[in-house]
């Protein structure tokens, strides 16, 4: 029983990180119809920028702050202006292909210019274990859970309670009506890209100590983020959290009790079941088809 609880707790912590990446992915889709196949690389890049900062002797907080700013500039504004804006009017598929190309390019850029090896990454939270009622929990898992949870709920409060947040939701629901209501649609969409870049940077900070910084670390994370987003419900912010945590826990349990070889397949099975029986996701609302 103790083992089981431990697996559930560490699974929840990992799942919360998936949820951060999934959340950015969902927001991008809602606000601008962008499916970002390079989402995993959006997590990988800030990790390497942080490492670069650390190698120049900067403390972790400073290196991370630089990574956040760089991420927002390059992966937020730059990505929107250079890739999404010119492509969005051609429909979904060219954008999918372009972000796939971007993913290949960015991954190999890091590999060719930095290193192909896996690099250790400092822990933000101490790795010590505490015993609660016979269950051993690491501070790291608790810290991850608290931080990721705070960000998800904070973001939700921002979207629901503030005027800017509500304007962003209006843009996501109906761009034309939002324009008529005097909302600066372009600015709201830009905010979404910035938030996505920031979420990815935080996910990088939390996930890299366990995944290690490697040029292809984004492959797994990106994939899990997509699945988490769809399992929870693509048009629901809370859905990403539910999906992420569900995937994290089930993966841990499968790895421990069934077969480590098929651990990677868990998110996928869950995803297939969800799209066959409830394609709008567990918390999502069904969308009408239009001619």
């Amino acid at each position, binding site marked *: 029983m103790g083992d089981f609880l431990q697996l559930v707790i560490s699974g929840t912590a990992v799942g919360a990180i998936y949820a951060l990446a999934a959340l950015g992915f969902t927001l991008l*889709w809602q606000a601008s119809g962008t*499916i970002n196949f390079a989402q995993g690389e959006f997590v990988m890049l800030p990790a390497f920028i942080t490492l670069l900062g650390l190698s120049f002797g900067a403390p972790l907080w400073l290196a991370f702050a630089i990574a956040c700013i760089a991420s927002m500039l390059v992966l937020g504004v730059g990505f929107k202006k250079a*890739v999404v804006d*010119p*492509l969005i009017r*051609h429909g*979904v*598929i*060219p*954008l*999918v*292909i*372009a972000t*796939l*190309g*971007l*993913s*290949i*390019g*960015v*991954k*190999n*850029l890091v*590999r*060719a210019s930095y290193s*192909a090896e896996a690099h250790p990454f400092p822990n933000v939270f101490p790795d010590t274990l505490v015993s609660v009622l016979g269950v051993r929990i690491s501070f790291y898992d608790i810290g991850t859970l608290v931080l990721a949870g705070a960000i998800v709920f904070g973001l939700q409060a921002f979207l629901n309670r503030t005027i800017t947040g509500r304007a962003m939701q209006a843009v996501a629901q109906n761009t034309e009506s939002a324009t008529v209501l005097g909302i600066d649609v372009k600015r709201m969409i830009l905010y979404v890209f910035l938030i996505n870049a920031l979420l990815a940077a935080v996910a990088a900070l939390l996930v890299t100590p366990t995944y290690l910084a490697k040029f292809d670390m984004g492959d797994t994370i990106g*994939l899990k983020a*997509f*699945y988490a987003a*769809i399992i929870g419900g*693509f048009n629901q912010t809370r859905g990403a959290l539910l999906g992420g945590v569900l995937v994290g826990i089930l993966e841990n349990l499968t790895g421990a009790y069934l077969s480590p*070889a*098929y651990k*990677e*397949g868990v998110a*996928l099975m869950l*995803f*297939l079941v969800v*799209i*066959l029986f409830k*394609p709008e996701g567990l918390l999502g609302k069904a969308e009408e*088809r239009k*001619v």
Partner: protein
Amino acid sequence: MKRSQRIALAVLMVLLAAAPLGLKNYGIYLLTLWCVYVMAGMGLNLTVGYAGQMSIGHAAFLGIGAYTAAILMKLGLSFWLVLPMAAVLCFLVGLVIGFPALRVQHHYLAFATLGFNVLTYLFFRNEEWLTGGTFGISGIQRPAFFGLSLERSAAFFWFAYGSTILLALLLWWVIRSPWGRAFAALRDNPIRAESLGVNITAYTLLAFAIGAAFAGIAGAYFAVLVQFIEPAPFHLTASLMMLLMVIVGGSGKFFGPMLGAAIVILLPEWLRFLKDWYLVIFGLAVVALMIWLPGGLLSIPDRWKKA
């Protein structure tokens, strides 16, 4: 097709057929590999380009075809018997994979097919009793063609080249048949197609199944070309590359996969001197191509006409 285009095509085909005479073994191998990917790419083009469905799992069908051929040929069955079996098996699996497409579109479908690819890859890697796991299956014999040996690389190229042309003719026929029209209707506006009496359930499934069968055939050729198979060539990356072949060439254009496959297979060879930087340039070139030419390279002539 115009007369001048027909002549150009005929000249190109003759030149390709003569190419092995002036190439070393490795060059001939690359050309044969091109044939294999053209076969698979034509299938993917039918699914993606003509029927408008998203698929990022085509390498899985290539893999199923290749493993079917390898396993059964190791048991002593003839290539000629195994080839239709690989096609039929992929056709059936393609039908099943088409089912999610009935419920979901675009990005969902992208991930559903992508997921299918991840699962088959895990299966190839983990089920050692059947697939040999990471050690793969080696020593696959090349077939003979009416008593002619295909062991030599040039002979095998001509065999694969001829088969590719036959498949291309088959695809040409499918596209021009009422089925082909129905696929296009499905792509352009599924709801209108349905209201005009097109059975969109059947055609969506068929689009996947026929595309998969092409990949299955390509897989069988792949197995006898390389004579050794392991899970790596059927990884998700391969599916992405195949999708790139179709889109870079021009999806929904008959010759799109031919051009795309040539680029994706030959470009790495020419850009070898760039070493690690090759994929950086390749990836960013794809982004640039999509920005300037979202319809692929074969849309350049249309552009010219408009301008």
